[in-house]
């Protein structure tokens, strides 16, 4: 079995907006969602990077207690975007509970907010509440908390995949969901990822000297992918979900088709767990093109991973150049608007690309004032550009050496 797989609904909670209109407005007007880091009473005053890609939308999580009781903040985000995707697609309880619809959804490490509470209890001098660490805290904080809170809330009985591969979490969700449908194991998959506001992630990258620190007074000026003055990534939060389904059944039910997933590349560098690898990334991009049976020249636009670290952007640029030659597709680093939304970045950047595809424009990399000469071989999107996008590539790379590339075509 080899079926076509299409995206028929999408929703994101992002630092640049929650609704489609808000996100488009930010992209079309160069509005950043990077804000000052909030005081968390624990780590924030010891972190050098004082910026964060912050969700500022006021979201009314109207969930009943029977669902809320097993949810940490990350699951609230996840269930909200999935609720919106299900409503957009008009999926019935019968379809959701058919066993033919599954969930591929993950986060970097469950809910660090809840985990922090657990550790506080562990290290509390009072043992009084020790016995209370049990089912609820685990269900709220566990790595697959997003996926199974989604299945619970919406009565989904199909397969569950819960990738937890840091920055490739949700691009893997979409890729593995695509393969699940393509090869006939499921007819539809709700795919995505989420990560909540979390300073421990900032602290990790801060300690690795990978975070932006030079723009603390002007948060919207960072991150600066591909720019000569870039000084590191900005951690962010958010969630993104898409509904993938078999093309024929989507057509039969008259669904809006936002795009077709035509290729997925995924591999590992097989070595260093932190440093990106040009050969590994190059191979991923080629695997995706081969999977899609597309030539490099067929791709119009690349949403680059582009975290704005010193070497990551250079290595990604080299890989793009190796695969696509002298005239590369237009390239933008969408993290320039939002920071690095971690486990949700692949899904959010896919959704932003779908929105741009639908509206026929490409948003440029924000804060790209002077291109680093080592990244200058790319065709950087030269400002807000009207363009009838037909094929876009969404690239993401993660700690652990995991690389992904999704190729999406307008139908």
């Amino acid at each position: 079995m080899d079926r076509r797989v299409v995206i028929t609904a999408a929703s994101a909670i992002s630092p640049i907006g929650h609704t489609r209109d808000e996100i488009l407005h930010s992209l079309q007007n160069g509005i950043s969602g990077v804000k000052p880091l909030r005081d968390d009473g624990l780590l924030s005053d010891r972190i050098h990077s004082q910026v964060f890609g912050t969700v500022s939308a006021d979201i009314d999580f109207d969930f009943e207690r029977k669902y809320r009781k097993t949810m940490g903040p990350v699951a609230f985000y996840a269930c909200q975007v999935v609720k919106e995707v299900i409503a957009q697609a008009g999926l019935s309880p019968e379809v959701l509970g058919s066993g033919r619809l599954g969930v591929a959804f993950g986060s970097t490490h469950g809910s660090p907010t809840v985990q922090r509470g657990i550790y506080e209890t562990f290290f509390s001098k009072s043992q009084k509440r020790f016995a209370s660490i049990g089912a609820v805290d685990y269900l709220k904080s566990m790595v697959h908390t997003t996926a199974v809170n989604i299945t619970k809330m919406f009565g989904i009985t199909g397969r569950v995949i819960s990738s937890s591969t840091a920055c490739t979490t949700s691009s893997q969700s979409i890729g593995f969901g695509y393969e699940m449908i393509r090869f006939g194991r499921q007819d539809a998959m709700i795919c995505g990822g989420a990560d909540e506001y979390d300073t421990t992630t900032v602290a990790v990258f801060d300690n690795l000297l990978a975070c932006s620190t030079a723009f603390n007074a002007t948060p919207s000026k960072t991150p600066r992918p591909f720019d000569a003055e870039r000084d590191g990534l900005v951690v962010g939060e958010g969630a993104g979900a898409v509904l993938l389904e078999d093309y024929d059944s989507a057509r039969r039910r008259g669904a809006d088709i936002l795009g077709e997933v035509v290729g997925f590349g995924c591999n590992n560098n097989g070595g260093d767990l932190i440093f990106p690898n040009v050969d590994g990334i190059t191979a991923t991009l080629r695997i995706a093109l081969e999977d899609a049976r597309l030539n490099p020249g067929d791709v119009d636009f690349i949403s680059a991973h582009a975290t704005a670290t010193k070497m990551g952007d250079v290595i990604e640029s080299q890989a793009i150049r190796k695969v696509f030659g002298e005239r590369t597709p237009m390239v933008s680093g969408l993290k320039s608007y939002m920071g690095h939304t971690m486990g949700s970045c692949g899904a959010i950047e896919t959704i932003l690309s779908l929105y741009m595809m639908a509206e026929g424009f490409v948003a440029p990399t924000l804060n790209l004032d002077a291109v680093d000469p080592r990244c200058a071989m790319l065709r950087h999107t030269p400002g807000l550009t009207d363009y009838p996008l037909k094929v876009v590539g969404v690239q993401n790379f993660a700690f652990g050496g995991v690389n992904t590339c999704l190729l999406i075509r307008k139908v």
Partner: protein
Amino acid sequence: MTRNDIQERILTIFDEEFEIANPGLDDDLREAHGFDSIDAIELLREIEDMLGFELSQEQKKRAMDNIRTLNQILDYVESLTPETA
């Protein structure tokens, strides 16, 4: 604590912690109100706070195995003493 006192405290816990207002004394809590095993574990913690002592594993298992209604919860709480914990 009288049975009425216990009932008042338990009903407050049901209202505030579980958003279940005024359940009938003989309602099957799972069937009628969706009160599940996670809620039961939470309730046992609340009961420990209310009584001011920790329950033994055996006492907790007895609750999880046997209790279905509010009246049974009241019987259970009345039967608990720190000496048996």
